[in-house]
């Protein structure tokens, strides 16, 4: 999986609008959202800071197809301005995931990761038990089986709720390679048709990198054309 962000200008990010202001409709043309919707981009357009006129239209297309412009607009209006970029990143991530996997969407990632956690914890328990036996004058346990006992298949009802999520986490982990690896691993473990999970990450991760690259310099004018700079990890988020 490519670890390099897209070299083109970030399509989503704070302050990336061509007019250099928070809204569109200036001399710089419509934002990506208004371009896609073929409407006039007015000053103060809620989408303008996050969807530029280049690749923003493509990303907004996915968001619009899954959520709808009106719903996303209402969602963003209820979020403080300083948190909206994060919200747009995750909304784009979910939209892309849903388009890739119309049945499970982002839940496929969660399933895969949860399976991985369960197996890692099982392996850890085994090794810790092994370690404790090494401290005792008794024969070591038999070697571990080639494959650990597979946990029961997860269902959506087994998933935790968003309220159980800690308050702080780093958006840069959105493009950790392990997401793709865990999905592949999960597919092997569960012996499920790979199409069910879909491809995870190349485009999603490139999107996340673009978004985060923008987040690293939210105040830069639209003339900022330094997408090749390595993205700096964003600050930890807090609710």
């Amino acid at each position, binding site marked *: 999986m490519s670890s390099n962000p897209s070299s083109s200008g970030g399509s989503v990010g704070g302050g990336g609008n061509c007019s250099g202001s928070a809204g569109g409709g200036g001399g710089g043309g419509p934002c990506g959202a208004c371009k896609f919707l073929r409407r006039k981009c007015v000053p103060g357009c809620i989408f303008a800071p996050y969807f530029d006129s280049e690749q923003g239209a493509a990303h907004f297309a996915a968001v619009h*197809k*899954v*959520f*709808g412009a*009106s*719903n996303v607009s209402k*969602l963003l209006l*209820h*979020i403080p301005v300083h*948190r909206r970029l*994060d*919200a747009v990143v*995750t*909304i784009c*991530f*979910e939209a892309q995931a*849903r388009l890739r996997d*119309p*049945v*499970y*969407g*982002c*839940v496929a*990632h*969660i399933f895969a*990761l*949860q399976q*991985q*956690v369960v197996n*890692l*914890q099982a*392996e*850890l328990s085994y*090794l*810790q038990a*092994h*370690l404790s036996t*090494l*401290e005792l004058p008794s024969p070591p346990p038999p070697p571990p089986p080639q494959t650990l006992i597979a946990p029961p298949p997860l269902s*959506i*009802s087994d*998933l*935790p*709720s*968003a*309220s*159980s*999520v*800690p308050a702080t*986490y*780093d958006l840069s*982990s*959105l493009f*950790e390679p*392990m*997401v793709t690896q*865990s999905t592949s691993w999960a597919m092997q473990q569960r012996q499920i048709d790979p199409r069910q999970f879909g491809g995870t990450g190349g485009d999603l991760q490139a999107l996340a990198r673009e978004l985060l690259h923008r987040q690293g310099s939210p105040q830069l004018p639209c003339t900022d054309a330094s997408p090749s700079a390595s993205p700096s990890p964003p600050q930890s*988020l807090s*609710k």
Partner: protein
Amino acid sequence: MSSGRCAACRYLRRKCTEDCILSPYFPSNNPQRFVSVHRIYGASNVSKLLLRLPIHVRAEAADSLYFEAQCRLEDPVHGCVGLVFMLQQQIQAAESQLVKTRVQIAVMKSQAQHPQPREAESSFNNPFLRHFDNDANLSFSNQISSGFI
């Protein structure tokens, strides 16, 4: 004519037809389920998405949509992506702990196989230490003779 509308049609205040796409997945006994999905995705988007899917997977799709909608309502900024972060952190913590445990096991096994690693080293394998070992032996023997040990 059935008077029972599904939760979707009841919410949308429309007639629930026999071929209502949403009816199987949004029963009238759980109105909140459709409300959540509608607030995030909209009834039209949900209908289009389900229509594009084979019938045998629509239930799972509806469930996952509901789950994601609930996550987004609970955490408007991160939605269910927050769970992805949390699980990634758990994976990292577990992997880190696995590494530590494997190291501990390796150390324990090494100690069990070579209970006196210094003696074995100095005697034959390390000529540099052999020199000192000789001196140490002399020193040791001196200590013994002197009653120090």
